């Protein structure tokens, strides 16, 4: 198992006393640029430490939010490609549904792959619902655009006798011939993420790495749908564990009480991430008409559950609830190791743990201790699991 350190690079100073939203419409006058600079430098220091400790790195992006200052993953990847040495650099994800220009995606990601000498993993995602209010891309038809952009980026990365022409439904280019081409051949590995069984089957058929994000013990049916998709191409074998990733929160310490204190900070991601004004939460076209009809009829989607089926709330469930649900791995190194292995076995084997090792107001000292203890006491055992 590989383990990636992930932080959303939050600006937590304004989380208290917010006006009902932390995303889209919270005025940026609430932010102090000097404080933001200090935080961002600190978060990069922690990724550097992760690299030195033998962890890999995951970055993402969000828009117009105090929960995540990474407003374009390309900036984070660019910095990390230059300053880190060994870590894989996973972007999960590059929000293709919010991007108007896949040529730029192909150029930027190829350049980062070259600078990092082939350490890029490309996670393509459609983007979160409330950020269609920011990008102004249309959520209606987003998956059509996503797959055309995907096809285009791969062709741009794998065509070496170009230029080629592209005139299709959504994108138009006359001379596609990217310089530099990617370092990895034929292109950096492709990842994606989904909570939908239908999309999981598509990803399985393509053989891409699929991540479930914090869905805990609800995740197994998604991984199984991937396996069904993988089998459709007449492949002789089951997908290997390295096709499966899971994002979980991690709080480890040398004693359980300290770990649980740390967990409160890591879990603050779950407590703040959904705070967005209701009018931005569900743009038309993001969910299917059938799903939206079920919501209007009051049929809410399934909640997160513990291994034994008890529903819990990510927003205000207790630390123990989050541990029981497989959303948070928390405790001493032995406990965390056991929780991760139990969860991975339940899912049928995971090749990648995407570890939220810092969130919210968790201090630098706490983060350093969290990462260091994990890397020294848990990672070696997971690598041989």
């Amino acid at each position, binding site marked *: 198992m590989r383990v990636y350190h992930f932080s959303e690079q939050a600006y937590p100073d304004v989380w208290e006393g917010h006006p009902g939203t932390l995303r889209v419409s919270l005025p940026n006058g609430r932010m102090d640029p000097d404080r933001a600079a200090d935080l961002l430098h600190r978060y990069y220091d922690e990724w550097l430490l992760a690299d030195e400790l033998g962890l890999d790195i995951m970055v993402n992006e969000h828009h117009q939010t105090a929960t995540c200052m990474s407003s374009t993953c390309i900036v984070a990847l660019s910095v990390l490609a230059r300053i880190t040495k060994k870590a894989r650099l996973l972007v999960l994800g590059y929000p293709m549904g919010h991007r108007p220009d896949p040529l730029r995606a192909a150029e930027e990601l190829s350049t980062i792959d070259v600078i990092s000498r082939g350490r890029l993993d490309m996670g393509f995602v459609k983007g979160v619902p409330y950020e269609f209010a920011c990008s102004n891309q249309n959520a*209606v038809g987003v998956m059509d655009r996503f797959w055309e952009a995907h096809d285009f980026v791969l062709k741009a990365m794998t065509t070496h006798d170009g230029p080629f022409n592209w005139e299709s439904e959504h994108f138009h280019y006359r001379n596609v011939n990217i310089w530099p081409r990617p370092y990895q051949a034929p292109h950096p590995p492709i990842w994606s993420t989904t909570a939908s069984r239908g999309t999981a089957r598509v990803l399985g058929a393509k053989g891409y790495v699929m991540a479930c994000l914090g869905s805990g013990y609800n995740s197994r049916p998604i991984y199984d749908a991937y396996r069904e998709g993988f089998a459709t191409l007449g492949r002789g074998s089951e997908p290997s564990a390295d096709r499966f990733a899971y994002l979980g929160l991690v709080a480890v310490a040398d004693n359980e009480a300290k770990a649980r204190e740390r967990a409160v900070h890591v879990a603050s991601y779950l407590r703040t991430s959904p705070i967005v004004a209701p*009018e*931005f939460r569900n*743009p038309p076209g993001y969910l299917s008409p*059938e799903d939206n009809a079920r919501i209007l009829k009051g049929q809410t989607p399934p909640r997160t559950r513990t291994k034994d089926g008890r529903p819990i709330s990510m927003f205000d469930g207790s630390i123990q609830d989050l541990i029981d649900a497989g959303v948070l791995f928390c405790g001493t190194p032995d406990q965390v190791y056991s929780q991760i292995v139990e969860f991975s076995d339940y899912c049928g084997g995971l090749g990648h743990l995407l570890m939220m090792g810092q969130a919210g107001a968790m201090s630098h000292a706490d983060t350093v201790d969290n990462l260091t203890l994990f890397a020294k006491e848990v990672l070696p055992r997971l690598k041989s699991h």
Partner: protein
Amino acid sequence: MSRKVEGRISSVRGHRIDVHEVGEGPPLLFLGAGIGNDPGRAAIEILARKFRVIAPSHPGFAGSERPRSITTVDDLSYFYLDLLQEHSLSGAVVVGVSFGGWIASEIAVKSTAHISRLVLADAVGIKIGDRETRDITDVFQITEDNLRKAIFATPAPRVVDYKSMTDAEVLAITQNREALARFAWSPYMHNPKLKDRLHRIAVPTLVLWGAEDGVVSTAYGRAYCAAIPAAAFATIENAGHLAQIDQPEDFARHVLDFTSGALTAKRETTGAA
């Protein structure tokens, strides 16, 4: 008394379309608002005493197929020009409400060969304000309560109970919401080029506005009217953005008064032929 004839038109160029069709007489193409076809029926029943009313659910809206090539309001306007031609509707009155008014304008700037009169009721589709002023209330990012308050001036339609509806009725609502966003998400509810094309509308036009429209103001309506050569402006009291729902009788009366000339013209044309 009108005789109901259901479903006379069911396709255009082979594409299935759900049409609420009622009444006999000269054709009246009723292009409904983005919330879908159903709520305007009270006004339509009154209009059907004089007209053959043809009220389609737009392509991509509930019950109507969307050919893959139809992705813009411009495409919708060609679809309806095809409908008028394929089904030999001559001298048609075209009534467009809200989003349907945008479609009606896009049709009329292209051709009025099949159209005798145009009614634009609380129509969207043009840009009148500066770049930092949103002319049209953003129906895609507003809570449902606030949206209903913006749309309706009377209390009854402000209340909706999804749980008492059938699954099919609720699904039609969510399909319509998605379809509207496909066509109107960005540029939001307008075509930046349309205003400069309105001078081409060559038939008498009534621009009809709910006096309490909370989605597009009467000032917007007057600007719309001013850009069309032979257009008159009228308001309906105690009516919001969908006046045909708030005040169906007044709405129908305005349309009937305005089109009485069209009915006469139609008879004259028939007599001469």
